[in-house]
């Protein structure tokens, strides 16, 4: 028998002498990741461990009449079977609204809802035992869309709601409703020369991270539990788990293990509570690893949406008004639906200046799979629709679509429909100019040097469906706006603990945060910041856990801003302490100690003129300096419930794309040839990682445009929970992605940086669809585009 890697040991020491901010410093976890030694949550192993398995509902909406676990418990090797009746304390959890049952009680509300859990000594034993649990269901008619959710006889999915949105929603099956109103749309409509009104639809996208939901719960001697887990926010997991386990928060200790991607899908709990419950019940460590099939049921997805947009413009190309309605399907439980509604509503018209706006966004409760956070978070759905509208209005006006966008583009000083002043650079027109100015990829790029055809470069690829006949090229543009950080008055903060000590005569900085490194490269950036602020070459990044204050979530493009900000803020306080000690000891020896502008560089205290006046290792000596501090972004405020007015967002980020596609019009196959991006990042702390984020985000947008959708049908059942049937872009589907990075500082943010991760996911989808429209002349009002949309069959 082999032994797995030790959980939690992901400490890395970087000994690079360079590696300050602004450099493409390499990942500290890179070597472990290329040798296979990096311990992901699914790799954890304990010699006494049991395997957990979850029994899930085959129905989307049903009453549970009875559950009989006797036969499952009798299976040799089974150590525990738990149902709702076995829960020790709180029975529900949730990010904002605690409406998600830990295990279903008398009703299931979506296909795949957890009903019972089993712990056994082999994963196959657990699976087989779960199959022996007898659950008697009585199926109920499912709520599947707005009509069935709000019909007169619609079943109320969450009777007796007491959450803080319940009072203002027009129907109990609506989670949250957010209007945004500004100006006078009715009057503006009378002045419009051109009006375009269309309906759009966005399918349900899955985050499809590669590392499945997994973790290891180890019962502790103090009656608590240690959970090694892949998540996006350790502290909010803990705060949801503790009441469910009936334990005080300090007895629920979480340590981040290796995370195989996240993209929003790890914001909600998945197997965390189940593993901890089984561990506490059996007194043995319990590991749960979902397979891909279960993963599709184990996390929330991107909200599918139906959107109706009406744009009015003058003949010379000025946007007069936008009216729209966005219906997001939140599925069975609330998850982060209210915040997704807030985003969709406040960002509904895109990065444009429009004086008259009337927006309504709602999220439904339904019996479809629960939806919540996914990269782009409410802004993706809106961007697909408003950018399609921008093209449609430009076409009506006979204007170039890029020129029309530039004519109406916002810039610094603009006012959002929420009344919020855009008080940092917003180079929307410039981003469009840059992608448009790029040279076009060569025509007939599938021809090789000797004039033969490389089918790999054609739609259909190695299926060898065409040699260029019936292949048409199209070019499309789009731009989007995304908020950075948590909005609407949320007290968004992060924490960093920094210890500066001398090891073997060298000053070393230890950085301890609870930030979830999910692949984005936060650990790299933290080390860069510590080197920059403290002038040390050696930085150790300690494992993320709940022994330090919360870092907030790795989502909303916020971690470089927030935990990067916390690391910087705390390092600066440590530096102040270094200087205080230095002044105390040597102030009288050198007059420069009295000056304000002292820096730490290369292990020395230097003046802004570069003169060395002290040695870091000598000043720190035997007394390490350790501080733990919080960092907050400037406060925001909630949107008014009727008008949507309010200073709701911390920061905006902008990305533009140009897509070049080739379409086999006979078979309806699309090949994206190139997907160029331009994005303002304020300040690229790590240019290599920034480009990687933009390319990865662009590719997920491409996936939504032409391939990715969870198909839910036949009584709200998920039809394609596998990578055989839910397709994500392969290396053959993904084109070259040239990236142009602008750095216009946002003075409100650390180093002037702007959150990067999400904006590229917005504009990529509409740019690709615009290119396919240009190639085919079809209206294409739904994503993902399927071949039958292009061939009309």
């Amino acid at each position, binding site marked *: *028998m*082999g*032994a*797995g*890697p030790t959980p939690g040991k992901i400490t890395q020491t970087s000994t690079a002498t360079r590696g300050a901010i602004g450099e*493409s410093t390499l*990942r500290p976890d*890179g*070597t*472990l*990741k*290329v*040798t*296979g*030694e*990096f*311990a*992901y949550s*699914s*790799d954890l*192993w304990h010699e006494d461990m049991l395997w957990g398995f979850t029994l899930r509902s085959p129905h989307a909406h049903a009453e549970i009449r009875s559950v009989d676990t006797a036969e499952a418990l009798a299976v040799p090797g089974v150590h525990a079977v738990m149902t709702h009746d076995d829960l020790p304390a709180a029975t529900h959890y949730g990010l904002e609204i605690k409406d998600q049952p830990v295990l279903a009680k008398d009703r299931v509300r979506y296909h795949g809802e957890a009903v019972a859990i089993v712990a056994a000594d*082999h994963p*196959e034993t657990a699976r087989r035992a779960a199959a022996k649990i007898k659950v008697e269901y009585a199926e109920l008619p499912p709520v599947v869309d707005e009509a069935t959710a709000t019909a007169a006889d619609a079943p109320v999915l969450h009777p007796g709601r007491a959450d803080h949105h319940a009072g203002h929603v027009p129907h109990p099956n609506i989670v949250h409703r957010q209007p945004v109103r500004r100006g006078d749309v009715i009057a503006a409509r009378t002045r419009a020369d051109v009006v375009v009104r269309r309906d759009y639809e966005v399918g349900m996208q899955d985050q*499809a*991270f*590669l*590392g*499945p939901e997994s973790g290891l719960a180890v019962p502790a001697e103090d009656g608590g539990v240690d959970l090694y887990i892949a998540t996006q926010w350790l502290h909010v997991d803990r705060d949801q788990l503790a009441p469910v386990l009936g334990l005080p928060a300090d007895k629920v200790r979480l340590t981040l293990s290796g*995370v*195989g*991607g*996240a*993209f929003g899908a790890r914001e909600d709990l998945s197997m965390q509570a189940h593993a901890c419950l089984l561990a506490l019940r059996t007194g043995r460590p319990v590991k749960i*690893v979902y*397979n*891909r099939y279960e993963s599709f049921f184990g996390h929330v997805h991107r909200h599918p949406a139906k959107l109706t947009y009406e744009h009015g413009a003058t003949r010379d190309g000025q946007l007069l008004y936008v009216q729209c309605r966005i219906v997001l399907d939140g599925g069975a439980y609330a998850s982060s639906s209210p915040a997704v509604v807030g985003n969709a509503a406040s960002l509904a018209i895109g990065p444009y200046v429009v004086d008259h706006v009337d927006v309504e966004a709602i999220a439904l409760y339904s019996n479809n799979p629960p939806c919540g956070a996914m990269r782009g978070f409410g802004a993706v759905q809106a961007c697909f629709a408003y950018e399609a509208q921008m093209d449609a209005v430009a076409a009506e006006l006979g204007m170039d679509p890029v020129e029309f966008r530039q004519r109406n583009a916002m810039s610094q000083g603009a006012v959002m429909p929420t009344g919020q002043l855009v008080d940092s650079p917003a180079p929307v027109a410039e981003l469009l100019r840059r992608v448009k100015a790029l040279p076009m990829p060569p025509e007939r790029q599938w021809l090789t040097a000797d004039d033969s055809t490389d089918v*790999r*470069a054609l739609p259909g690829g*190695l299926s060898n469906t065409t040699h260029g006949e019936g292949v048409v090229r199209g070019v499309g543009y789009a731009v989007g706006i995304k908020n950075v950080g948590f909005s609407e008055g949320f007290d968004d903060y992060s924490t960093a603990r920094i210890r500066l000590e001398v090891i073997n005569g060298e000053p070393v900085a230890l950085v301890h945060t609870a930030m979830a490194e*999910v*692949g*984005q*490269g936060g650990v790299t950036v933290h080390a860069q910041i510590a080197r920059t602020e403290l002038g040390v070459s050696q930085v150790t990044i300690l494992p993320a856990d709940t022994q330090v204050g919360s870092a907030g979530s790795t989502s909303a493009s916020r971690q470089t801003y927030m935990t990067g900000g916390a690391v910087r803020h705390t390092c600066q306080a440590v530096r102040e302490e270094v200087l205080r000690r230095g002044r105390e000891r040597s102030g009288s020896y050198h007059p420069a100690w009295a000056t304000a502008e002292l820096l730490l560089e290369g292990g020395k205290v230097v003046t802004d003129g570069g003169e060395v006046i002290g040695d870091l290792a000598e000043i720190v000596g035997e007394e390490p300096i350790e501080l733990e501090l919080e960092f907050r972004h400037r406060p925001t405020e909630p949107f008014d419930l009727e008008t949507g007015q309010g200073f709701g967002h911390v920061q905006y980020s902008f990305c533009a794309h140009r897509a070049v596609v080739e379409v086999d019009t006979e078979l309806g196959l699309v090949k994206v040839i190139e997907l160029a991006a331009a994005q303002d990042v304020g300040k690229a702390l790590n240019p290599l*990682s920034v*480009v*990687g984020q933009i*390319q*990865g*985000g*662009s*590719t*997920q947008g491409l996936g939504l445009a032409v391939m990715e959708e969870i198909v839910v049908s036949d009584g709200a059942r998920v039809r394609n929970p*596998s*990578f*055989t049937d839910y397709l994500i872009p*392969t*290396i*053959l589907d*993904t084109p*070259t992605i040239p990236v142009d990075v602008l750095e216009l500082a946002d003075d409100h943010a650390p180093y002037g940086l702007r959150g990067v991760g999400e904006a590229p996911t917005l504009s990529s989808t509409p740019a690709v669809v615009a290119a396919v429209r240009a190639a085919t002349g079809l209206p294409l009002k739904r994503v993902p585009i399927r071949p039958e949309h292009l061939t009309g069959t």
Partner: protein
Amino acid sequence: MRVNFTVNGRPQQADDVWEGESLLYVLRERMGLPGSKNACEQGECGSCTVRLDNVPVCACLVAAGQAEGRDVVTVEGLAEFAERRDATAPGGPEQGSGTGLDEARRWQPGPGGSTPLAPVQQAFIDAGAVQCGFCTPGLLVAADELLERNPEPSDADIREALSGNLCRCTGYEKILDAVRLAAARTGEEG
């Protein structure tokens, strides 16, 4: 059942293997080699790619029993495998010859850093081709095999060879960069 096979040059024996267990399960859960990843267990993602008698395969699709008496190379043994290949075949790899067993047997799994990385591993780090890294082990095994067959692959060759390996984080651009970089560096050396 019992399975005897060679893993990264060392003879291994797995006992009490269940009928349905895959080679991936045996490597990860019984051999203590979790480097090969388990993103789909359906042959769709390539995160579990290993060499089986030199041929890249999805370990999740290989029944453990099928590995009986055969030679497996995983990401954990890739650096050693590449080093040995370069040593035994100075003019380039001998097609289909595989790792010399006697030499491979001298390999010991040890703490990271004891063996220099294979060119393709170093190139993945340097090119920024690793984000979450979950796809990386499978991609490395596949890319290393490509470069062994074809030391100067075109972009289309790289895309074709890696088309069975999904990555959700990078958008593949930097993976292409990494393979080009590894090819260029190996070319310079040779």
